[in-house]
């Protein structure tokens, strides 16, 4: 295993996580309650309490390259039960933002699903479920992923073939546009 050099923690990383999440990571005393209650722990590569520890130690790479931050579903177990009232789920969210910005996406499929979902919202104003599925399949090539659901799903007639277009879809699209411009402006600065 790797030796963590403690003399050169990435203090900017610690500060950025704290500022963007509004949480004081130093108040974590490593009791492990977040890990204990995390339903997703079995799928994680780094348990959530260790993510917290690595943030405390300023280990940017190890944190942002972890799969765990992509698998967290924001179920809020950690936040609700943290004895120090740290909003751990919010920190996981922020780490995901930072990983995205840094170009890390260790769980491609999770990112692809999110992207497909938001593209659909941007395009139609509301989510077009069949469209999301199609776009996700296209991005990942995972055609067979939920094909076994079709026999149960199709007779129920739930998924509409056409998207619900709303009148304000331009307005929604512009929210996305301004969001991207804002981020570009931030980067140029």
């Amino acid at each position, binding site marked *: 295993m790797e030796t963590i050099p403690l003399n050169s923690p990435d203090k900017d990383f610690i500060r950025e996580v704290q500022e963007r999440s509004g949480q004081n990571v130093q108040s974590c005393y490593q009791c492990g309650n977040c890990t204990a209650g995390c339903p*997703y722990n079995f799928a994680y590569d780094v348990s959530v309490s260790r993510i917290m520890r690595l943030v405390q130690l300023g280990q940017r790479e190890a944190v942002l390259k972890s799969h765990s931050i992509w698998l967290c*579903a924001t*179920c809020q*177990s950690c936040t609700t039960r943290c004895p120090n009232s740290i909003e751990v789920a919010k920190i996981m969210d922020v780490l995901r933002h930072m990983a995205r910005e840094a170009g890390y996406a260790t769980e491609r499929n999770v990112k692809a699903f999110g992207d497909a979902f938001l593209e659909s919202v941007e395009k139609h104003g*509301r*989510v077009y479920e069949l469209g999301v599925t199609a776009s996700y399949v296209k991005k990942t090539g995972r055609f067979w992923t*939920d094909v076994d659901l079709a026999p149960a799903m199709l007779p129920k007639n739930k998924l509409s073939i056409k998207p619900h277009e709303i009148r304000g879809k331009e*307005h929604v699209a512009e929210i996305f546009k301004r969001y991207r411009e804002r*981020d570009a402006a931030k980067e140029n600065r």
Partner: protein
Amino acid sequence: MSISVGYYPGCSGSGTSVEYDKSTRAVCKKLGIELTEIDDWSCCGSTPAHTVDHTLSAALSARNLVLAAKQGQEEVVTPCPSCLANLRTASHKIEDEAYRPKVEALLDDSCESAATVASTLQLIVEKVGLDAIKKAVVKPLKDLNVACYYGCIMNRPPELMQFDDPENPMAMDKIMEACGATVLPFPLKVECCGAAAGMPKKEIVTELSGRLLNVADSLNTEIIVTACPLCQMNLDLRQGQVNRANGTGYDIPVVYFTQLLGLALGLSADEVGLSKLVVDPTPRLRFAGVL
């Protein structure tokens, strides 16, 4: 009694959870609640938006709260806990004077006046009340053993949701009791079902929903009652996948609380959209004399 509020159905209401939307509208009508759908509402951004950026997420949600206010609604209710969490978070952010300008910049609109948000579950429990429900029940759900499953974000985090207990919520339990059902002490009320991982990471859902079905089954649950489209979908539509992945053979119907409440209030199976469910609850409901 007449209650009038704005209504935000959420995207899944016209897709995968069409029966939740339908039964919610029917039950509210029956209980004297007037729901006015926000005209031209848009997606709240759901989980993908807040995993990308908090301001983007807030702006997508805030659009609806501002729209509702412009349409004269002070309060909006939504059946979907995921929409609720996003709308409430946005509501919080635009109340914060330091944060509001960031949201307004994306929205290109003022957020000064915006509607507040609650769940239809909260509305029914708090505004209609259990006594009124008891009085309105015409077909008690006698001899029906149900487990109420709230999902992870209906009441959490408590500081944001400000409703019911975050570890042991009782709102649906009480409604089901008022309808005459036997409510089992389901210990995993707020454990996560796997949420939106179904498509990208199916094994997460089969594991987590598998645990829920396992404990529900060990309590001899006849019907699982939910309040969340994603929970319902994972437990119902994906119950086959769960069984195949874990080598189990569960056959437990998973319904929305509004569907059972509707039946107890005398609505028909069609009016609450029972036929849209994958695991068919009608044999049990017939046996219990509800249908």
